């Protein structure tokens, strides 16, 4: 039985990875171009006038955040569009009629989201080498945070897709929730620059913990303690994992 589930998992994961690699011009290239523009405008042109942030060049400060932003948006976008597309054209039924446990479906889609998030993350990191020197304080923390964050947002994308009833519904959350939280999550500034009150408010933004722990992995400096950041990320993963499984078990949005 385990072998059967393993094959099913590999099938879903492979299909999900093939889906975004087949259309790489739509899935990989645009975020790379966008981040390259961020590096040119904010890193080079404006960054040179800003000077240092948290004891490092501004372009070095924003680089981890920009990579993390790409990972977040792409792992989310991959699952939300793929799962909603499967729901819309009803080929999600191919998995529903088969003896595939919901856990396997969840892991398969999350793997697709993680693969795209990390692929774009690597591509963006390579582009960043054109603008800044590559230095990594702790490769294991960089990898761990990238992996956990992409898992988290892949699951968030799945929940969005489960509740979505139209293509508009899959763009509302990224536009009105994800993007603002990402921009306010300390990519472009240290929260130490904010008044005390707004510093406290910022601590309620989960993306702050991801950006800062990721920055710690690259630069060894962070506004947030690494352990608390990892605990926050893991707590969110546990929560979304349970929500995803309950929704799939109930058949919310996919079974009448």
């Amino acid at each position, binding site marked *: *039985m385990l*072998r*059967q*589930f393993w*094959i*099913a998992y*590999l*099938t*879903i994961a492979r*299909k999900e990875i093939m889906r975004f690699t087949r259309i790489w011009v739509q899935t990989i290239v645009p975020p790379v171009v966008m981040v390259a523009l961020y590096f040119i405008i904010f890193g080079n042109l404006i960054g040179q006038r800003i000077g240092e942030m948290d004891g490092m060049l501004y372009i070095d400060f924003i680089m981890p955040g920009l990579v993390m932003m790409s990972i977040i948006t792409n792992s989310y976008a991959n699952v939300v569009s793929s799962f909603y*597309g*499967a729901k819309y*054209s*009803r*080929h999600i*039924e*191919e*998995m*529903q*009629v*088969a*003896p*595939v*446990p919901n856990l396997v479906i969840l892991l398969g889609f999350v793997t697709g989201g993680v693969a795209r998030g990390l692929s774009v993350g690597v591509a963006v990191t390579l582009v960043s080498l054109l603008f800044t020197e590559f230095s990594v304080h702790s490769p294991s923390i960089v990898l761990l945070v990238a992996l956990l964050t992409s898992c988290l947002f892949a699951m968030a994308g799945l929940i969005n897709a489960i509740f979505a009833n139209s293509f508009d519904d899959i763009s509302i959350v990224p536009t009105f929730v994800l993007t603002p939280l990402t921009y306010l999550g300390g990519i472009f500034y240290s929260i130490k620059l904010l008044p005390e009150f707004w510093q406290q408010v910022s601590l309620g933004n989960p993306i702050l913990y991801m950006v800062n722990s990721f920055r710690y992995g690259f630069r060894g400096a962070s506004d947030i303690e690494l352990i608390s950041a990892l605990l926050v990320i893991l707590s969110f993963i546990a929560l979304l994992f349970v929500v995803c499984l309950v929704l799939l078990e109930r*058949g919310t949005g996919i*079974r*009448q």
Partner: protein
Amino acid sequence: MYALEIENLHKTYASGLQALKGIDLKVETGDFFALLGPNGAGKSTCIGIISGLVNKTEGSVRIFGHSIDDEFLVAKSLLGSVPQEFNFNTFEPVEEIVVNQAGYYGVPARIARQETERYLKQLGLWQHRRSQARRLSGGMKRRLMIARALVHKPQLLILDEPTAGVDIELRRTMWNFLDQINDQGTTIILTTHYLEEAERMCRNVAIIDDGSIIQNSSMKSLLKQLNSETFVLYLREELAQAPQLERFDNVVQLDQQSIEVEVPEALSINDLVGELETRGIVVERMRNKVNRLEELFVKMTAKPDTEKLA
């Protein structure tokens, strides 16, 4: 053992629509079974529940003795289903759709490729294996869904209108293919609006109407219930009006050289032809107005016109 056992199956949708009102159904292993009913009768809901696409409200379903509630992984692995509407990713290549489906059932990749090749060849799709599914014709898409449903070698195959929109030549090819599958031991449940198809292929039949089973018997015993048949007669000479035939009902003139006559079970075609000859009317050719099962089906599920359109 029964291939399928359904007991007291109810389904009420969130809208309040009661699609199934406690149906009971048993399908023998190896059977070729027809599940018939008018549009909206509850056939697709019933199939949706068996396949795991629709949540039931009440009742039990067992596939080869395995409950879809407690042993759903085993039950699902024994089932293959061909839905009424296309439900594959139209942007995927044909071969990938079938191979992936095998993968969902845990079939190792090498065997999945072999089985995919076998069924795509048998169903005349092998030369289209690298085409995106959206480029296939309607008939090819139907055959693709059959290949996909068979790739994991199910013991029970459910086909929901598999020949809808398929031309007659292709339909006959599909009938032969399904006959072979059934001969090899696969139990088949078929829903169709082509009653000629059901009569030709199925040994047993259930008719579902308004969420309830109104008939469940062998095809032979069902057809015996037909107490009259309607024939269309083509005449040698033109008629001014339909003849008055005392022993026959519903004599209708279709045009100047053809009439339609309902022949009750107690009388034969010879009686009809003889009676026409006494009136100097010679019959050149004749045919059934509709197929026998269709005639019976219409009588059993007849509703007032206003209700049909509601």
